[in-house]
């Protein structure tokens, strides 16, 4: 029984009829960015062809239409992450900017010398470097949650690390390398008991797992729309309203002000306080179409489809001699991201050879260099799935992997 009509879904994505090197595109680089359904592209075209205008301060029809479409997406996002109130949904460029916003605005007013910021060992650079810079500026310290053999959070070690000095626990919801789903609510319990806040990097989690900020019990959540069928250029910061109210603005300029004099300023209310300058209006509006599309499929179905693909892929990977798969082996504990190394073939070469068969995977450090060091590799190859991927594509992927070994001179058998 199919959770949704996969054939129909594939038809919704124009790019899937493209050929690469004479072969149909097999797009397995979804953790980097997702493809876009026609309705999202159409939302952009429709905006630019019919009601493109600057928002919030306009009195003419185009501006009113654009403003209400933009603000309606804020409501869609609020619903999508089950957030209690609207004014705590802030649009940014991407997840990275959202983390930086918190690090600058909350961090620089709250982190003191000696404080500790707890990260997991598998954080993406975007949820790591901003905290490094904050820590070094404020004399605070980064402390790491270590991973178990299978690449999971060790809650016991976490309990020993999160304590009175902890001011913030900043963790990914799902690893973009290992696929690991992090027990955020458990970590939040530890953090809150210690009086610390929790920031969740939902860049991988929100696109693939049904998300509720209340259930995660987090204080901040960041994510990027481009990884969930939306256009490039839109991220979201959600924060507890009382925290956001108390935080100073980050970027300043037009739209985020209440009144401006030559020598002083009164800021606008939330969410505008954090949205300076002309926003990415078109892409926010088109993000609404992406959210609607995911809602139509149902996030439970999205997850079910990915578990099925992941299970299948993990099983088939076992057939390969000499393939090393990282992360939890139970598809229920992980997202549809499979990082691996194969037969001593460098991930770049794997990526290159797969591309020859029209298969797009990613190769490298995946913006997780500290994790790579822990795994004692320079990089991994990574295949990642989304709603339009099929088992047939996974078969093609496996076939091409064996071809790669052949091209490189049968390293697996040397």
């Amino acid at each position, binding site marked *: 029984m199919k959770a949704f009509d996969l054939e129909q879904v594939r038809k919704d994505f124009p790019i899937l009829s493209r050929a690469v090197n004479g072969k149909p595109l097999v797009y397995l680089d979804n953790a980097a960015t997702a493809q876009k359904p026609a309705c999202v592209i159409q939302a952009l075209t429709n905006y630019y062809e019919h009601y493109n205008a600057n928002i*919030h*301060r*306009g*009195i003419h029809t185009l*501006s*009113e239409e654009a*403003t*209400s479409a933009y603000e309606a997406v804020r409501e869609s996002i609020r619903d999508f992450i089950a957030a209690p109130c609207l004014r705590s949904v802030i649009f940014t460029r991407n997840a990275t900017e959202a983390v930086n916003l918190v690090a600058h605005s909350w961090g620089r007013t709250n982190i003191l010398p000696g404080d500790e910021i707890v990260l997991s060992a598998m954080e993406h650079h975007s949820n790591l470097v901003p905290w490094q810079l904050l820590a070094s500026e404020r004399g605070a310290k980064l402390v790491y949650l270590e991973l178990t053999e299978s690449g999971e959070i060790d809650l016991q070690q976490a309990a020993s690390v999160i304590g009175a000095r902890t001011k913030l626990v900043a963790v990914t919801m799902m690893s973009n390398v290992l696929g690991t789903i992090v027990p955020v609510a458990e970590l939040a319990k530890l953090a809150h008991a210690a009086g610390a806040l929790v920031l969740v990097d939902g860049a991988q989690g929100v696109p693939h797992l049904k998300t509720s900020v209340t259930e995660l019990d987090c204080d901040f959540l960041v994510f990027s729309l481009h990884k969930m069928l939306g256009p490039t250029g839109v991220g979201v910061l959600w924060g507890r309203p009382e925290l956001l109210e108390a935080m100073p603005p980050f970027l300043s300029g037009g739209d985020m*002000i*209440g*009144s401006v004099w030559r020598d002083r300023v009164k800021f*606008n*209310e939330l969410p*505008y306080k954090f949205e300076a300058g002309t926003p990415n209006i078109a892409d926010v509006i088109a993000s609404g179409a992406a959210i609607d599309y995911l809602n139509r499929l149902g996030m439970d179905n999205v997850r079910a489809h990915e578990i099925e693909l992941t299970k299948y892929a993990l099983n088939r990977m076992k057939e390969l001699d000499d393939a090393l798969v990282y992360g939890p082996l139970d598809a229920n504990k992980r997202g549809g991201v499979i990082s691996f190394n194969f037969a001593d073939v460098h991930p770049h070469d794997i990526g290159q050879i797969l591309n020859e068969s029209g298969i797009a995977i990613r190769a490298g450090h995946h913006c997780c260099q500290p994790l790579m060091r822990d795994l004692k590799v320079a990089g991994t190859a990574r295949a990642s799935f989304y709603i339009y991927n099929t088992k047939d594509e996974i078969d093609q992927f496996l076939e091409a992997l064996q071809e790669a070994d052949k091209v490189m001179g049968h390293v697996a058998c040397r």
Partner: protein
Amino acid sequence: MSLADDLYRETILDHYHHPRNQGALEDATVKTEGVNPLCGDEVTLYLKVDSDAISDIKLEAHGCSINMASGSMMSEAVLGQSLEQAMSVAGVFKNMMLGGSQETALPEELEDLEALQGVRKYPVRIKCALLPWNTLLEAIETSRAKGEDHQE
């Protein structure tokens, strides 16, 4: 419907051209400023509160027709009312502006305000109509807080 029917009805233009209770109030007990950050329109509201009632009210308003007319009508509607009553009128008005598209029938003494219903079709202007009322609510709150201070 034309703009003149919806927005620029005679009552509104009358209040706009001849706004009631304009100016400063020397013996005000509360003075509150309101601003619409989107357009910069400002209103300064003066209340004289005597034993929990608005015994005098004046506005210094710089704004568009809707803003001016709404403030002028408001000053007439709440002058002489108890703070309680004024708050309830403000509630009725805000409901009318922010509620659905149905026409709301207002009590006779608030009839003038009905003219502002047409504004609901112009979402951006709703804020203009609400500014004086939100400022009133803030002023009442301030007045009450002061009262409590005195009692302590």
